């Protein structure tokens, strides 16, 4: 029952610590708060995983943020599973339930109780752990492989420590992937991908259709699995930063911010205020250019080429601004561990302000034009709806969650970096406004139109945030706090998180025992959390609406596949 740096512990975390201790004391080997807001609960037995996790999920209203498996056999003799839950009731707290899984003796492999049937959001994590670590989720309803496709041998587990990064595994006999079969009169299958007709990333979609109506959709992803997490264990801390920018190219600021934040937490370093502000400005620029691009895509998918063309011009203008600011059209190179690598001197600040104001003006006109057009609006309304209960059950994040009435935003719920002093949505500060917000969230229908409107609202908000931050830029010349090597204690770990334009991205970093090394880097982008949504959203819609629904969710394949 220790607290690291007791003076700086979130009050909510301290309260949860005692609640959990009081209720489950006998089953726990320790409860402690680290990194200010992470309540770590260590289980005596892996058999208690369901009891604890379901308590945190159902009673404490925790949303499963990520599940981290790490091979710590060399350190502590077993695999460790960490279930991180995000408490979003206004208290900035994460609850991390940790359990040990001993290596099984052949022939019985190591296993752990599956949560998939009772906590659907855990299903994909468990399949991933099975592929990458060879730990079997007991009674998991879906035994199919996930990350490693059919041609991988069944006894290869790349994330185990004994597996060498550059091993070239011989191809096994293609076992085929058992897609769910929908049978009946007139049901046909449409296989699409992995190579698509447009300029997009690879993934396979298997539609079962009845006439035009989609009766079932299964997605098969992980075609772009590049081994990001394993590779990170082979790179130095500063090089992993470059890797984190390239997890998903169009969300480089969000992912690298989350990574930097995790390392900074382990080191106990706070970047200078101006650095955090620059980070926030770039994160919002990223949000703007991507939201504008997605809205252009929606316009294309409803056949309104004129709107798409004009919105894409705005995206191009934003990308040119990115280049002026960061030296890269995709904002690569903004972040450094301990701060940022770029600055916003007065001339750049002015350029940013002028450009985004100009873009916003044109953007508002375009939105007005789109909203006036019934051929656009009719396609959006009622298409691809996701209800609030489904959204909560799947653990959706970001725009997808907010459009379905779940009021979650990591920038506000877990204010990181400069976001502690930034108003995310300026209207919700008085009781009346809060009630209005609640009513508004309840009316969001989770369809493509709701996601369209949420994105439009966020573009406006982001432009306001950039303006607000630029007005109050800290004058300090420091842009990077030194991160002393001795502060990065071996096996120290922390959660880093950020809200990308897709939603919450969570990075868990555990420092290695060699200097500047990483022991485990677990990335969960918003795309991984939101991909299951598409299978639900398209049901009973027509095949022709699939591209539209897909675009409205704006999912990254690379961010999912790692």
């Amino acid at each position, binding site marked *: 029952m220790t607290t690291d740096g007791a003076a700086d512990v979130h009050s909510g975390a301290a309260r949860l610590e005692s609640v959990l201790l009081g209720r489950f004391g006998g089953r726990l080997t320790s409860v402690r708060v680290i990194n200010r807001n992470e309540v770590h609960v260590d289980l005596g037995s892996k058999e208690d995983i369901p009891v604890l996790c379901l308590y945190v999920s159902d009673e404490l209203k925790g949303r499963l943020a990520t599940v981290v498996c790490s091979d710590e056999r060399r350190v502590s003799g077993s695999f460790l599973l960490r279930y991180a839950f995000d408490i979003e009731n206004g208290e900035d707290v994460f609850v991390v339930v940790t359990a040990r899984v001993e290596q099984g003796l052949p022939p019985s492999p190591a296993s752990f109780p599956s949560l998939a049937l009772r906590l659907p959001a855990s299903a994909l994590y468990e399949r991933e752990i099975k592929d990458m670590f060879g730990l079997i989720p007991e009674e998991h309803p879906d035994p199919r492989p996930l990350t490693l496709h059919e041609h991988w041998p069944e006894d290869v587990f790349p994330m185990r420590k004994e597996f060498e990064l550059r091993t070239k595994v011989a191809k096994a006999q293609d076992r085929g992937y058992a897609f769910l079969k929908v049978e009946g009169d007139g049901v046909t299958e449409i296989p699409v991908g992995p190579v698509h007709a447009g300029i997009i990333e690879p993934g396979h979609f298997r539609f079962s259709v009845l006439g035009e109506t989609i009766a079932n959709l299964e997605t098969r992803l992980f075609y772009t699995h590049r081994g990001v997490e394993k590779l990170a264990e082979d790179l130095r801390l500063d090089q992993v930063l470059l890797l984190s920018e390239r997890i998903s190219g169009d969300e480089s600021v969000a992912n690298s911010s989350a990574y930097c934040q995790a390392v900074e937490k382990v080191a106990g370093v706070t970047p200078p205020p101006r650095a955090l502000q620059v980070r926030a400005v770039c994160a919002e620029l990223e949000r703007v250019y991507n939201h504008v691009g997605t809205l252009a895509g929606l316009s294309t998918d409803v056949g309104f080429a004129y709107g798409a063309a004009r919105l894409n011009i705005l995206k191009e203008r934003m990308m040119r601004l990115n280049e002026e600011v960061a030296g890269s059209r995709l904002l690569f190179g903004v972040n450094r561990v301990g701060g940022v690598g770029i600055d916003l001197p007065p001339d750049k600040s002015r350029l940013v302000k002028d450009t985004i104001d100009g873009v916003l003006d044109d953007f508002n006109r375009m939105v007005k034009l789109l909203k006036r057009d019934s051929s656009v609006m009719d396609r959006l309304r009622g298409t691809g709806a996701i209800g609030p209960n489904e959204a909560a059950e799947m653990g959706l994040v970001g725009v997808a969650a907010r459009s379905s009435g779940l009021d979650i935003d990591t920038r506000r719920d877990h204010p990181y970096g400069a976001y502690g002093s930034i108003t995310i949505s300026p209207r919700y500060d008085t009781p009346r406004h809060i009630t209005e917000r609640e009513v508004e969230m309840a009316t969001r229908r989770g369809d493509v139109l709701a996601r369209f409107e949420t994105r439009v609202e966020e573009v406006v908000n982001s432009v306001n945030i950039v303006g607000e931050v630029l007005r109050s830029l800290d004058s300090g010349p420091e842009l990077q706090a030194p991160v002393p090597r001795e502060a990065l204690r071996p096996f120290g770990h922390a959660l880093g998180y950020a809200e990308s334009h897709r939603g919450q991205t969570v990075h868990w970093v555990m420092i290695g025992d060699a200097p500047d090394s990483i022991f485990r880097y677990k990335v969960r982008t918003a795309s991984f959390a939101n991909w299951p949504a598409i299978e639900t959203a398209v049901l009973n819609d027509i095949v022709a609406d699939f591209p539209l629904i897909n675009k409205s969710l704006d999912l*990254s394949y690379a961010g999912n596949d790692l």
Partner: protein
Amino acid sequence: MIEMKKKESTHNILGDHVETDKRVLEGSRSAPAFRGDVVFTVSDAQPADPELIRLAVATCAPRAITSNEVDGEFQLTLDKGRCIMCGRCEEAAPIIFEAKSNFARPARKRSELVVARPPENAATGPGSSHEEIGKRLSEKIRGTLGRSLAIREVDAGSCNGCEVEVAALNNAIYDVERFGVHFVASPRHADVLLVTGVGTRNMESALRRTYDATPDPKVVVAVGACACTGGIFGDTYATSGGVGNIVPVDVYVPGCPPRPEALLYGLLLAVDRIG
């Protein structure tokens, strides 16, 4: 009488100006801050400090910088096909490296992307604009193919950064259709395969099948550091270390990601291959 509400006119909503302001159209070259082509500085021909060389080599995440000791002197080589333009080498050893604001030139041979220090032809002029390259491309397409160049884009495991830039070619600023460049939905209609990404193991057979489905004569353009060499992702259990290890590559376009101008330049070389 039912009174119909009159629809507000488009002109009323959009006003007199258009989003394509002059700066955007004319400023078609990269911004001065752009980290593009990384080159050896020409200023000093004297051997660099071994410590500095060691630092620069260690700094480079995709291992684009290598050093060889020959007769007590260090020979440095820089592989632009690997470079991810992070600029860390310039920060570590500014007297050896410099990140220029023009794009790195695409090449037909992999070896053309590897340069040694001291540089032989160090003069890198200002990068051409997309208008200039586009016009040359347009003439070449007309001369070689008659009408248009059909391209199929294949993502073989990229971070989607290259996709953003390839997609930008079709926006109203670059608007490559006017040069006769046409993106098609099927490899069966394509002259050129524009391949991005590191060539993941999970995409290997799909890429090979796409290549087989493309009619001859066909040209493969590897787009970006990942497709050229594996980039930061390298050659691991999950990747192939560049799409050249899966299908034959005719043109290499370095960059992370390559700017639209670099992509057009790569297509220019691709048409040469067909002709």
